[in-house]
């Protein structure tokens, strides 16, 4: 007997401030105007997606001491856009990336609880951490956090936010006009938190929201990040979009859940994925090559090589061979404000490997970056892409995908129009929303449901 088909979860990542997003295409619109967000969100909702996803970056990227100008630059405030999108959508989940380093739990908890009320239970929080003094220069706090403390702060931040969300049970507001009792409990919202990073107490001032707490995402991939996700997250925004890597990650993370008394279905794994569709697989492959060339201009190729070489390579010809000088190994990096820089742990070895690759394939600098960089996850006809996605999910390499189109705001439209109907026909993706909250879409229980009904027995008795 074969196991039942898993239902796929799909989300839409608003195109980001990196070279995946092609701004030079004639179809590319504004990354700031609200109309772009409305188009994108309404397309996702039309396709019955689980949620929309917004990334965050709190300082403009720099390279070689100057603001990086080759990619899309600029984005709106996450909470403010999501609240406005709640007005033009009905069911779509609204996920915001919010940093735990340059915010305070009381304020962030208020904002998420408010967003959850204002969207009737559709909010989610992708918790990210950072420690860099570079970003800290934009904040009162500055870059105060030692790198090794970032996860401990993130964990405590999230735990503290949960204490704030839970400081209202949900039954405190009586609002009895006849008797004049507004609050059933004079101490509604009372909290005390004493920890390494936060020592706060008082009264939280947003009553319990429809989802109780926002859905929590985690995006880190380190050992600490995986453990953090297993202990505290509802979903992981992961990087592994190939079958083998995806399955290994999936197995690893899901196996950690038991330690925290959690079931495998209480943590969803959703990798980011890009796609290029064509009428045929061959047409899609050609389009994909074209998109890669748009994504990696000669100037962009040089800048990407500089991430590894950590030195000014502006004198090199992007259509010529790779530099014969070695990378500069230093704590000081030429690029600031980018997460991916940390991925190059041994730049000298990578440079050696890349030179060999380029020589063997007769690649220029630009060819190398095009071929070793972020190639599209799914390339093919709608039928091929639908099949690949379904195979991936049924093989437990993920529970679905967070799709990142390369064109704003219309890049999701072909997926919505051509791939989603095929997944629906196969019975692996919803034809309509069954519930109203994001927890409903993701199959996650309400936080109060663990103990049966609304209020936990201990609380009811106290």
């Amino acid at each position, binding site marked *: 007997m074969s196991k039942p088909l898993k239902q796929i979860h799909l989300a839409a990542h608003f195109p980001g401030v990196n070279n995946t997003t092609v701004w030079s295409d004639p179809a590319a619109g504004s990354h700031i105007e*609200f109309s772009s967000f*409305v188009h994108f969100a309404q397309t996702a909702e039309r396709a019955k997606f689980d949620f929309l996803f917004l990334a965050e970056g709190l300082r403009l990227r720099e390279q070689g001491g100057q603001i990086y*100008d080759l990619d899309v630059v600029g984005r709106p405030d996450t909470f403010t856009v999501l609240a406005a999108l709640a*007005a033009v959508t009905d069911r779509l989940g609204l996920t915001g990336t919010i940093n735990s380093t340059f915010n305070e739990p*009381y304020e962030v908890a208020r904002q998420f609880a408010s967003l959850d009320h204002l969207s009737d239970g559709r909010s989610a929080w992708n918790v990210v951490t950072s420690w860099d003094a570079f970003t800290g220069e934009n904040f009162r706090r500055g870059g105060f956090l030692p790198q090794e403390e970032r996860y401990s702060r993130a964990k405590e931040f999230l735990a503290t936010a949960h204490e704030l969300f839970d400081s209202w049970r949900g039954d405190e507001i009586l609002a009895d006009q006849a008797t004049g009792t507004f609050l059933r409990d004079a101490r509604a919202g009372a909290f005390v938190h004493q920890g390494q990073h936060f020592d706060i107490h008082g009264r939280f001032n947003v009553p319990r929201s429809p989802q109780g707490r926002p859905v929590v995402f985690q995006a880190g991939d380190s050992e600490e990040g995986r453990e953090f996700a297993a202990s505290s997250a509802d979903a992981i925004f992961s990087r592994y979009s190939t079958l083998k890597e995806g399955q290994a990650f999936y197995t690893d993370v899901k196996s950690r859940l038991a330690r925290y008394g959690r079931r495998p279905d209480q943590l969803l794994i959703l990798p980011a994925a890009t796609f290029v569709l064509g009428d045929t697989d061959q047409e899609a492959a050609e389009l994909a090559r074209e998109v890669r060339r748009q994504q990696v201009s000669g100037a962009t190729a040089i800048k990407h090589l500089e991430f590894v070489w950590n030195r000014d390579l502006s004198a090199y010809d992007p259509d010529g061979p790779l530099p014969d000088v070695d990378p500069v190994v230093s704590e000081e990096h030429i690029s600031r404000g980018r997460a991916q820089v940390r991925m190059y742990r041994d730049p000298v070895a990578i440079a050696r490997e890349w030179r060999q690759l380029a020589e063997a394939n007769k690649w220029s600098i630009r060819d190398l970056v095009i071929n070793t960089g972020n190639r599209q996850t799914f390339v093919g006809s709608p039928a091929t892409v639908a099949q690949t996605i379904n195979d991936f999910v049924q093989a437990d390499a993920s529970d679905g995908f967070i799709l990142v189109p390369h064109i704003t705001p219309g890049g999701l439209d072909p997926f919505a129009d051509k791939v989603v109907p095929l997944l629906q026909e196969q019975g692996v993706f919803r034809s309509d929303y069954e519930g109203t909250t994001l927890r409903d879409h993701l199959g996650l229980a309400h936080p109060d449901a663990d103990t049966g009904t609304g209020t936990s027995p201990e609380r009811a008795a106290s």
Partner: protein
Amino acid sequence: MSSTSPAPLHLAVALDGTGWHPASWREPVARPRDLFTAGYWTDLITEAERGLLDFVTIEDGLGPQSSLPFAPDERTDQVRGRLDAVLIASRVAPLTRRIGLVPTVVTTHTEPFHISKAIATLDYVSAGRAGLRVRTTFRPDEAAHFGRRTVPRLDGFDGPDAQEAITELFDEAADHVEVVRRLWDSWEDDAEIRDAATGRFIDRDKLHYIDFEGRFFSVRGPSITPRPPQGQPLVTALAHQTVPYRLVARQADIGYVTPRDADHARAIVAEIRAEQEAAGRAGETLHVFGDLVVLLDDSQAEAEARRDRLDTLAGEPYTSDARIFTGTAAQLADLLEELAGGGLSGFRLRPAVAGHDLPRITRDLVPELQRRRRFRDVYEAGTLRGLLGLTRPANRYAAA
């Protein structure tokens, strides 16, 4: 030119829960159970827009409401709890077209970088209708919600210690607003170039570090959000004495003040104008609005009876920092005209009961003022600055 009619008045409404009277939630029209829904706020702000009002402000705070000035209380007979005001404004923005949206922002515990991009984004989602109302907080319990600083425990606003503390918090607020404003200008309007020939998305010479360094914080910039549609969204502040008047004079586009009568209004306006000149802003438009709590009915007797009924429900007579008006729309129009004679260019009305007094403002007071040629018949501008006669300002960082 003695025949010139007096300038039209500007009108705003201050929204706070079910209304400003602590017993307002007990009125049948109040909808207290809807307070935490988008529909409640959409209905109120749509009503204000129906009356062609310049804007609404939305109250906010970083702790529960309280009947005490410097501490929380444990009362259960009044509305407690509220949603984030910026997010309410943003949630309602796509559902309205012309009315300005001015949420309260607390400067004491928040990051100016976050506030600047939030209000810039509100300006984008509302197509140029955003502003903010600056608030400071002296409450030690609110400081304890953040745990990063203590604020001195005050018993009142008088005395040298209190004055020193007030000066400190308002100086910080002025710096906060300065950073917010610089960040709004940190992108020139034409910084996004999408130049295919050079592969550059932006012209980085048109992005600017703000390099603010002050006593309380320093911020490098530029913002992550491009310059908002209005260039500079509206900055407003409520002020009751010299120190906050100075903040209004230095940083605001509108100050809300609480005059007892026309002479008092005249004295306040004179003080603000003197501070404005001292701050080097003499040539700039700075509106001074009078704040009034209003209870409006068809007759004065009816309005007074309602006020008595509310006071009885509350268990004590309602008092306010602002003058409380109780009467008819025509009487209120008379009062507004009289106060305007003291130099006020508009008013921010605080409905005692939002569900009752807001529609009275939009459906009774507004037509009355229109008959007197003292209020607009149609929205004459697409942005909030435009409604207030403010031009789109030049960018401070742009080469002249």
